[in-house]
C-alpha cells in the first residue's frame, strides 16, 4: 500500500511537473500581456510532433534542443501577425483568437501527421527501470524531472539576473513606465511570448516521450495549467510552479483512493482555494483580479 502511494505521489510529481512547465509559460504571457494563450496546448503538441519528425535526422538529443526553438520561432511569428494588434483591447478578443488558433493548429497537426497516435522513441537506455523494487523509477522519468528542474532553474535565472528578465518582471508591474524608460515594449512582449511558447515546446517533447504522440496531447494539460495558475496565485511564478506540482500530487494520491475523481479533484481544490484564500497560495495581496 505504501509503495502504491509512493508510486502515485511520484507519478503525481511528474504530471505536476508538466502542469507547472505549461503553466509557467502561460503565466509569463498572461502577466506581461494580459493574454490567456489558449493555443498553448497546441504549441505543446507542435513541439512534440516537430521532435518526432526531427529525431530520424538529428536524434533525440538534437530534437530536444531544436524542436522547442522552432516552436518558439513559430510562436514569435504568431504573436507578430495575430496577437500584437490585440494588445490593449478587450481580453475577450485575444482569448477568442487563441481559441480559434488552437482549433486550427490541432487540425493542421492532424492533417500533416495523421489523427492516430504515433510511437515516440526516447533513447532505450533511458527507458529502463532503475530499481527492481521501485519499478516506476525509470530513467526517462528521472531524466524528465531533471530537465524540468533545469528548465525551471534556467527560467528563474533568466528572469532574475538578465536584462531581458528584469525588464519582463518590471513590465509585469507597470508596462507603461518601462516603456517610458526607453524599453521597446513591443519587442519585450514578443520575446516574452516566444519564451512562453518555447517552454511549451520543451514540455511537448518531454511529454511525447512519456505519453506518446496524439494531436490532442495538449488538451489534457491546458486546463490543469489554468488551475495551477489560480491555485498558485496570480502574478507569482513561484506560486504557479508550486501550484502545478501540488495539483499533480493531489490528483495522483486521489487516484489511489478514489480513481474516478482523479481529474475532478483538482477543480474542487481550486474551489477550496478560492473560498479560503482567494489570492492563491503565493498571490500578492491587492492583486486579486
Amino acid at each position: 500500500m505504501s509503495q502504491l502511494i509512493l508510486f502515485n505521489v511520484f507519478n503525481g510529481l511528474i504530471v505536476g511537473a508538466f502542469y507547472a512547465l505549461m503553466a509557467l509559460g502561460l503565466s509569463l504571457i498572461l502577466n506581461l500581456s494580459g493574454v490567456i494563450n489558449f493555443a498553448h496546448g497546441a504549441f505543446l503538441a507542435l513541439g512534440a510532433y516537430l521532435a518526432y519528425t526531427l529525431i530520424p535526422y538529428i536524434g533525440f538529443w538534437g530534437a530536444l534542443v531544436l524542436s522547442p526553438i522552432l516552436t518558439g520561432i513559430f510562436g514569435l511569428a504568431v504573436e507578430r501577425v495575430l496577437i500584437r494588434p490585440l494588445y490593449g483591447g478587450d481580453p475577450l478578443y485575444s482569448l477568442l483568437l487563441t481559441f480559434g488558433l488552437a482549433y486550427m493548429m490541432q487540425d493542421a497537426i492532424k492533417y500533416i501527421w495523421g489523427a492516430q497516435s504515433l510511437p515516440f522513441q526516447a533513447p532505450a537506455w533511458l527507458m529502463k527501470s532503475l530499481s527492481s523494487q521501485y519499478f516506476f523509477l525509470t530513467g526517462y522519468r528521472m531524466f524528465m524531472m531533471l530537465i524540468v528542474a533545469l528548465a525551471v532553474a534556467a527560467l528563474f535565472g533568466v528572469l532574475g539576473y538578465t536584462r531581458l528578465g528584469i525588464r519582463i518582471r518590471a513590465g509585469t508591474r507597470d508596462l507603461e513606465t518601462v516603456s517610458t524608460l526607453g524599453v521597446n515594449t513591443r519587442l519585450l512582449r514578443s520575446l516574452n511570448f516566444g519564451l512562453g511558447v518555447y517552454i511549451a515546446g520543451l514540455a511537448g517533447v518531454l511529454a511525447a516521450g512519456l505519453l506518446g504522440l496524439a494531436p490532442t496531447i495538449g488538451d489534457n494539460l491546458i486546463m490543469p495549467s489554468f488551475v495551477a495558475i489560480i491555485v498558485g496565485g496570480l502574478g507569482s511564478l513561484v506560486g504557479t510552479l508550486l501550484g502545478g506540482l501540488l495539483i499533480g500530487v493531489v490528483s495522483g494520491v486521489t487516484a489511489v483512493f478514489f480513481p474516478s475523481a482523479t481529474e475532478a479533484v483538482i477543480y474542487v481544490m481550486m474551489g477550496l482555494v478560492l473560498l479560503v484564500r482567494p489570492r492563491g497560495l503565493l498571490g500578492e495581496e491587492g492583486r486579486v483580479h
Partner: protein
Amino acid sequence: MKASRLAFDAAVIAALLTMPFWMAAVGGYTELATRVVVMGLAAMSLNFLLGYTGVLSFGHAAYFGLGGYGAAMAIKYLDWGALPAMALGVAVATLAAITIGALIVRRRGVYFAMVTIAFGQVFYFIAFRWNDMTGGDDGLTGWRRPPIEFGPWKLDIVNDDKSFYYFALVIMLISAAAMARLINSPLGRSLIAIRENERRARFLGVAVERRIWLSFVISCFFVSIAGGLYALLNNFIDPRALRFDLSGNLVIMALMGGMRSFWGPLFGAAIFVVLQDYLSSRTENWMFLIGLVFVLVVRFFPRGLLGVLWRGSAA
C-alpha cells in the same frame, strides 16, 4: 428609431415563425432550424452576462450541459415528462451557478474567464467518469423525448420535427422576452452601468459583486433551458455538451452576431450552426476552417454582424 427597432423585432420573429417552411428551400432541414433556435437561445443567454454586464464567462457549456443531462436523466431514469424533466435540469444547473458564482464574482476580465472555464471542467469529468449514470464518454442513450400532454391536449414532439421546432421556438421566445424584460428593468440598467464603468456604478451605490452574481445566475438559468432543449432535440447527450470548446463556440456566436444588440447572438448562432453543418459535411478538416472563422471575426469583424448593421444608430 423606436419604430425601426420594433419593425426589426417583428421581422426576426416572423422569420423564426416561418423558418421550417423556407429552410428546405435554402438547402437546410427542420432539425437544423431547431438547432439554430436552441443555440441561439444559448448564445443570447450568454450575452446577458457577456454583452449586457460586460463579464467574460468562458464556462457556459457547463450549465448548458447540466441542463441537458438533468433533463435526459429525469426522462431516462424517472420517466418524467419533457417539461418537468427540463425544469429539473434547469434547477440543477441554476444551483450549480449559484454556488460557483459566489466563489468567482470578485474576479474580473481574463481571470474571470479562466476561473469559469476551469470550473466548467468539473462537470465534464463527472459526466465522463460516472459511467453507470451518465453513460460516460459514449453519452446517455436509450431514451426518447416524451410527448407533451396537458389533459386531453397533446403535442406530438416525438415524431414530428416541426412540432418540436415550434415547441423549442415558443420556449426560446418566452426566454428571450423574459431577458428583454430584465434588461429594461432597473436591474438590467444597473448591469449596463457596471459594464460601462464599474467604479462609478459602485460609487453610485450599486452592489456590484451581488449584481454580477445575479447576472451570472440568470444567464446560466437561461443557458440551461437551451441545454435541456438540446438534449431533447438529439434524444441524446454526451460530455461534449459540457466541454470548454462549446463555451468558446457560444462566445464566438455572440461576438459574430453582435454583442451589443439583443438579437445579435441569435444571428451569430445561425451563421455558426449552418456553417458548421455545411463544412463538416464537405471536409474532414472543418475544425481548421471553424478556427479560421474565429481568427477572422476577431481580427476584421469584432463588432459583429448586427454591430455593423446598426452602426450609427443608437444600438
